[in-house]
């Protein structure tokens, strides 16, 4: 095959193969890691990059990490220059050199063909601990990066196939839980799988053919994205959104100020004018904000476009340093990934009128709670980043109800709630309840996704809980669109053995939680789309029969009157109510919420 001739079948074979290699790497992590945040919640990404660090393909279970690997790969390539050899394994987490979150530790393995560096295999996953002042990494009390984490600018842990034991030991001497060491080994295993896959491909098709076809793949992907952008009318679109409480000053609010400029086949996200960086950890590194933009943008275009370098080419992001969306060194930034929700809100709001059939109403904002302590049965310390309890509902869209129990938009439904039995095997917690929450979803012609309620007894000792998130202050409910109602609010409560009940703030460390305390969390529902009075009566009735909407809410929000004794519709009363509302609408009521 000549080098400049493109074999179109081969391009798609390569693209699909890259995809399947990264999927296989993902499976490796899923199957071999120890921490539930990796193997159950799937908070990781696996990817392949070309010699220069350009993304060939990746499998993202959790989108927010995903679009923050290529930048690091390019940085590592520059950083080590000629000092990259077969058998090297490089670690990285530093948010001031293109990382997105301190806990997300990436492993890079260069792939060689003969003497030539031809590609990189990388795995990046959220680690159960990364040193710093508190276990688990989320530290609302942090004021600088060093109180959050051990910084790993790129460092080689293997050089030419040989373990650098001193370096390795130094890293893990600064991390609390031994499982992190095992999970990094699993990431290295994932990279080996990726290396094997890509080596086999290059040996088979030869390097020149490989490279020309990869370039073609990038170009054709870019073209697909540009075609999508062309569909959006040219113009400047403005969206705003508020992040509540910086963890330091009560009632503080940070504003996201976004202008999106669409010009032909280019799109520009400009965050100029957003609030300055905060003294606490409610700050994002550049990479986290960029990832948030990308993953939201992907929700507005054809979902089948391959994920490689070509996808990012038409997209520009202006995000001045010093804002809380691009904090300056040495700010604390662990909360950065969690600003994805508000960033997505701003994007959906900006595009609401231009792309009404594509945008979604607000998603439930993320509220997490990490528990660390001592497991008396296993006689060792434990950490649980509680992915079971935090998955609320998504926003409704044109033609579709929101997705129930989907969780934070950063993860877009890729994060799994832990299996209940595995949860109890892993942690000293006794689960009491995990069910949909009635009336949690914002009403609408299409309603928001339902939230969930979780309750369990803490049987660990010396337990500390760390709340980090949003969505508990009034005004932080998921927004409704085109007459749809807002979602509900998140809440975390601890009921102590002495009967005392206390609600957690959205960013707070709670120490000395006694054994036997009951943990309770509400992860709320998403926003509705369109007037609830237009929702078919039968759909409302079904939700009531199934205990997802109460009879009262059916009447008050949807104008549907249900007779409780027979669970049937009171047609006359319903018609009366709904007609009345229509009159108000004509007079100019029923505005977007």
């Amino acid at each position, binding site marked *: 095959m000549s080098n400049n001739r493109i074999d179109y079948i081969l391009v798609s074979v390569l693209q699909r193969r890259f995809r399947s290699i990264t999927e296989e790497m993902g499976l490796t992590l899923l199957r071999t890691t120890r921490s539930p945040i990796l193997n159950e919640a799937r908070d990781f990404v696996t990817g392949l990059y070309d010699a220069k660090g350009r993304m060939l393909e990746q499998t993202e279970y959790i989108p927010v990490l995903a679009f923050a690997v290529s930048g690091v790969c390019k940085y590592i390539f520059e950083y080590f220059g000629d000092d990259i050899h077969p058998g090297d394994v490089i670690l990285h987490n530093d948010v001031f050199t293109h990382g997105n979150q301190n806990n997300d530790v990436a492993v890079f393995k260069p792939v060689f063909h003969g003497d030539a560096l031809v590609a990189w295999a990388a795995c990046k996953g959220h680690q159960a601990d990364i040193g710093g002042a508190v276990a688990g990494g989320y530290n609302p009390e942090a004021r600088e990066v060093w109180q959050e984490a051990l910084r790993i600018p790129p460092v080689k842990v293997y050089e030419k196939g040989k373990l650098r034991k001193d370096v390795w030991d130094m890293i893990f001497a600064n991390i609390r839980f031994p499982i992190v060491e095992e999970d990094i080994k699993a990431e290295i295993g994932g990279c080996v799988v990726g290396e094997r896959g890509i080596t086999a491909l290059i040996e088979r098709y030869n390097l020149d053919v490989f490279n020309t076809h990869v370039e073609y793949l990038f170009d054709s992907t870019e073209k697909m994205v540009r075609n999508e952008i062309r569909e959006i009318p040219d113009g400047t679109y403005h969206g705003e959104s508020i992040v509540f409480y910086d963890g330091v000053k009560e009632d503080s609010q940070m504003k996201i100020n976004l202008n999106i400029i669409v010009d032909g086949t280019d799109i520009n996200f400009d965050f100029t004018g957003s609030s300055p960086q905060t003294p606490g950890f409610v700050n994002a590194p550049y990479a986290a904000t960029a990832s948030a933009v990308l993953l939201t943008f992907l929700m507005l275009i054809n979902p089948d476009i391959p994920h490689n370098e070509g996808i990012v080419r038409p997209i520009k992001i202006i995000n001045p340093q010093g804002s809380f969306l691009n904090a300056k060194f040495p700010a604390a930034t662990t909360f950065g990934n969690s600003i994805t929700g508000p960033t997505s809100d701003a994007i959906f709001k900006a595009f609401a009128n231009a792309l009404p059939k594509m945008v979604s109403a607000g998603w439930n904002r993320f509220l997490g709670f990490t528990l660390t302590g001592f497991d008396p049965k296993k006689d060792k310390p434990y950490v649980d980043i509680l992915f079971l309890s935090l998955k609320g509902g998504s926003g409704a*869209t044109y033609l579709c109800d929101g997705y129930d129990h989907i969780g934070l938009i950063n993860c877009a439904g890729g994060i799994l709630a832990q299996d*209940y*039995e595995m949860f109890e095997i892993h942690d000293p917690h006794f689960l009491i309840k995990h*069910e949909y929450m009635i009336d949690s979803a914002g009403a609408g012609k299409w309603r928001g996704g339902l939230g969930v309620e979780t309750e369990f007894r803490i049987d660990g000792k010396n337990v500390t809980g760390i709340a980090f998130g949003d969505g508990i202050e009034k005004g932080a409910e998921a927004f409704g669109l085109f007459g749809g109602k807002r979602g509900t609010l998140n809440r975390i409560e601890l009921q102590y053995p002495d009967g005392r009940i206390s609600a957690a703030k959205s960013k707070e460390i709670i120490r000395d939680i006694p054994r036997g305390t009951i943990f309770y969390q509400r992860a709320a529902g998403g926003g509705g789309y369109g007037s609830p009075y237009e929702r078919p009566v039968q759909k409302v009735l079904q939700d009531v029969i199934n205990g997802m909407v109460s009879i009262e809410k059916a009447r008050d929000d949807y104008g549907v009157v249900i007779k409780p004794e027979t669970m049937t519709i009171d047609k006359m009363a319903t018609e009366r109510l709904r007609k009345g509302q229509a009159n108000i609408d004509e007079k100019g009521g029923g505005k977007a919420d």
Partner: protein
Amino acid sequence: MPYKIGIDVGGTFTDFLLVDENGNLEIYKVLSTPEDPSIGVFNGLLEMAKNQVLSISEFLKEVERVVHGTTVTTNAVLTNTVSKTGLLTTAGFRDTLQMRRGIREELYNNKYQPPPPIVPRHLRLPVTERVDVEGNIVKNIKSGDVWAAINKFNREDVKAVAICFMHSYANKTNESIAAKMVKKKMPDVYLTVSSELLPQIRFYERTSTTVLNSCVGPILKGYLRNLTKKLSESLFDGVLLIMQSNGGVTSPHIAQEVAASTLLSGPAAAPVAGIAYTSTQEYKNFITVDMGGTSFDAILVENRKPFVTTEGKVNLNALALPMMAIHTIGAGGGSIGWINEGGLLQMGPKSAGASPGPVCYRKGGKEPTCTDADLVLGYLNPDYFAGGKIKLDIEKAKETIKEKIAKPLNLSLMEAAAGMYHVINVNMASAIREITIKRGYDPREFLLVCAGGAGPIHAAMIALELEIPKILIPKESSIFCAAGMLFSDLKHDYVRTYHTIFSKDNTDINRLIGLLKEIEDEGHAILKKEKIPEDKHRIEYSLDMRYLGQYHEVNIKIKKEHILEFDTESISNIFHYEHDRLYGYSLRKEGTRIELVNVRVTAVGITEKPGLQEESYQGPDATRHLKGSRLAYLPSEEDYREVDIYDGMKMGYGNHLAGPVIIEQVNTTIFVPPEYTVDCDAYGSYMLSLI
């Protein structure tokens, strides 16, 4: 004259393969009767009897084995027509079935909708009870809750009940109590108890599998009761076996208890048939595809081993029983052609099925189908469909395609029919991409084994789409799965959870041997019940293991001696090796401890298989089998050409032809485009080769 019969009920046709004691094969095919599939089965049996000049009773008396694959359960789940089912579950956890752990399969698609729950929330009822992680009962079962639920189930007239409580794999007492109460008050209900069906950790998977079993149970039971009754009324005294999704067969009384094992079993015999037919070829890696009237099934077979999974899904609901990893799309002869909002021609997934069927069947079909296009394009002979038993109405087909496709798209009739043919071929090629390219295999390196009545008309064009150089079309391709069933062994899978650190110090070897023996005995007992002599039993042992603290297990095959001799070293080594092979590393050197999670046994009852008969050599010249010629559409020329027609019923070993030709058999038509040649092998199969 003892006969064996394989019967495969499809969406459109019911296929039969009749084998006599000398290995002579006869194919039968009748229209399926979806309202009661046993009617179609009997129509076929009647036809066979007639051909042997026997009454149905005289004929059935001579039949020693009937192997039957049924789609009644799968269709019920896919079309949401399962039996009304109630779920009893531990209070506080009634939504696990619907939540599916909160996954959205398509990350960036905000319009993605989850499947409707098999059991709606108001029939998922909580029972106060609790077993903890160690198997201790920490809350006794509150019988009032169970009685209340039973009352509600009776009021709602549910036909099946599923019981799944937390940690019941470790202690089944509470489930058993609830089961007893249900049996007492609802004696006729179909009941599945999770600790009996799948005593295996992971609450969601166990719940979903248990519910699936219940909701199709009454359907399968009713069907099998009806069928066995009819068979015994006709004096059938042989063995009836039912195809399962694990690629093995089982007896009806066992199948109806584990009804879920027949879910997705329809195409499970295809790889078995593929292995049998390719055993005469050098190919070890192949893709079997089966294009029937309604669906197109594809599975990859590497090194003569079909892909097996315990992570199956039916309509996105977890099914944790071991099964063949088959990929299915809605594409078949009955697939309906239509035009979407964007003005693009689409084929399927809706199918006209057997009733009303394609327009050309003249059974009331109004929508243009793939078969109608195949007829208009000249691939099908209107006077020789099913050997002439079904007359095809070509005028009606033309009219409908003109009206519904050509006119709105402003195309000629030929262009419209050719478009339908092309679109469905691309759809099927994509399905093959899913199981090859998507998993990192290059389809060009595989043999395509093509089956199904409609398959051989499309096989070459699908292969061309993927540049697949070789296609094998078995002579019995039209009833491929029916043939596969006769090659299947009896197969039963068992699992027990024993969660322990695997070492001489921590593992209670007596408990392990006990568990193994328990399920092995269960396997032997069932096979004995199925009248398989002990020397035909084969027991396969495997363990699900993982490194301490990992979440997911690796299934490793072991020998029984490994356990009996408590050979922890060999077992550990097999585990390290498998872990390295699958995941790129092992922790052998580090001495990381290994956990045992599940013990598994597969009990296989080896059946007697029909032998393939070698034909005598005819030589390459096939001129004497030329039947004539007709106009048929050649995609490469985008026009009709006069194409030679050969009589496939007479062609034999050694015959060689170059495309374009059409080969007609009673139940199959093979279209060989100019890009391929065709050779008949010693067993009557056709091998197409890309020029």
